[in-house]
């Protein structure tokens, strides 16, 4: 499903250049549950952003579902994000002014149109049927992250990208989130890529990729 070939990413830092990714090659099959680990600054998030079509690599090629996407225009990339990719962020990134339901519906706005019934189903899937009218501020961290998962889930993506999904949660809520993600992976065959620091959480994954200084070490 995902095929990276010799991907590099270089950021200009004033006069010097910062090479964040130094030739990453990677294959991820459909339905895999993968953890990306590594110390701060190793390029985990940059890699995830590239895979999520939020950014383009400096060189190398990236095939998503057998389509070369690394040279696409921003409008095309946005379309791919809207149709195939569900993001889950460490800081949830919900719109604070919207209810849980409206936040989930926002996930469909740019992916074919809002369908309230499906939004309710997605919220039910993450166990929040009772809290659809609550705003993020009225929800616990774990609940907010579940709303974010519902928002990603509602457009039936084939790929989930989670950047430290449990980073701001207590261990109990973290376990809940991981169990939702693993069951989505097991039951619906959604490919899940997760950046994490937590070895305990990574242990739930079938495969662990270790990054260090922009290279895969293990």
């Amino acid at each position, binding site marked *: 499903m995902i095929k990276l070939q010799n991907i590099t990413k270089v950021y200009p830092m004033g006069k010097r250049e910062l090479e964040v990714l130094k030739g990453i090659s990677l294959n991820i099959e459909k339905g895999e549950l993968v953890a990306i680990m590594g110390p701060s600054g190793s390029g985990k998030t940059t890699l995830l952003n590239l895979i999520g079509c939020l950014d383009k690599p400096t060189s190398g090629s990236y095939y998503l579902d057998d389509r070369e996407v690394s040279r696409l225009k921003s409008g095309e990339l*946005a379309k791919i994000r809207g*149709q195939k990719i569900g993001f889950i962020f460490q800081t949830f990134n919900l719109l604070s002014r919207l209810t849980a339901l409206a936040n989930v519906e926002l996930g469909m*706005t740019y992916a074919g*149109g809002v369908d309230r019934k499906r939004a309710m189903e997605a919220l039910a899937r993450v166990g929040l049927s009772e809290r659809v009218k609550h705003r993020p501020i009225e929800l616990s961290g774990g609940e907010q992250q579940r709303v974010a998962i519902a928002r990603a889930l509602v457009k039936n993506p084939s790929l989930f990208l989670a950047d430290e999904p449990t980073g701001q949660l207590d261990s109990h809520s973290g376990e809940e989130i991981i169990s939702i993600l693993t069951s989505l992976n097991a039951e619906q065959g959604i490919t899940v890529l997760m950046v994490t620091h937590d070895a305990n959480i990574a242990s739930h994954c079938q495969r662990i990729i270790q990054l260090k200084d922009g290279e895969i070490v293990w």
Partner: protein
Amino acid sequence: MKKWSNFLSTVWLGISTHKLRSFLTMLGIVIGVAAVIILMAIGRGATAEILSNIESMGSDLITIRPGAFTFGGIRGGASETLTIEDAEAIAEQVPYISAVAPSYSSNLQLVVGGENTNASVTGTTPEYMVVNNLEIASGTFLTEYDYQRGAKVTVLGSNIKETLFGNTDPIGQQMRMGGNIVRVVGVLESKEVMMGGPDDAIFIPLTAMQQMVAQTRTAQGERVVSSISLTVSDEAQADYVVEEITTLLRTRHRLGALDDDDFNIMSMQEIAKTISEATGTMTLLLGAIAAISLLVGGIGVMNIMLVSVLERTREIGIRKALGAREHDIWIQFLVEAAFLTLVGGIIGVIIGWLVAYFVSSLGLMTTVVTADIVILAVVVSVSIGLFFGFYPAWNASRMNPIEALRSE
């Protein structure tokens, strides 16, 4: 349909989140549009009032006065060139004329009971009433019979009647006029136009005037008049009639090709055109001044939209991560700006309209609000939103999603 309601709810979200800010942004447009509407309404109202005054005097009216030119209201040249014979020639030889009324004015001493005043008296023919669109309030106007035999009768303007007779009925009463006794036969309906109109006039038959004052004659022995007024039967032919009269009078007055006219022809149409051009310019000027405040309002919209885009960087990042294209973000902010100014424009129209209505109904000024101005104001306010929202919306659409998501 669903897509639209969705889209509008997105826009509404942006606006409703900062109600006070949105309101203040709108206020600039509201004030600008209201100012445009009010000032244009006043300008249009003034034009309409002046034109209706002219209309009441008869838009088919043409007046000929002696004298070559007018400069700053002062008439120059010889002043005794028009004659009764000129008037008769015009009536006979120029086509498209329905009535001609020569008149001769002179200051005479008036005595009614104890009242003793000096006033301008106009000697004229019965046609004068038709030509000048006058109406009789009581009694009759000068008749053909009065004219033929030079009857010592008079018709009074409404103001003069008030001055001389107060509230008593003057019909049939006698008054002294320059040594003669005249009998009042009629009182005119008030016209309520400018000073010096028929409300302040006193009319007697031109034939009676010739007996009362020694009337001047020209070198050819023709009887001098102070003006000739006439009406055209077809308003579309007014310009042609003016031309014909000019040719006729130049021939009759034996003017050479290089001589200036020794008379002056004014058609009401001409006057109305001049006045409406002048007031139209004034109206545009007023509108332009008001439009400046609209421009300032537009700059306010841009300012607020720039702040709003900056503040919602994270939201833009989230939307982009969820699949929003640059185009989607651009349209969202553009429509938000246009919506603000559209609502501001509509509120401005309503306020402007109400103010114009109250100014009118309180009798302060005549105001006219026309559909074209309302439509223009709304279209302009939406355009302002689109114009001044363009750059902020473009800024928003160009944000890098990763950096936007990282912002706090």
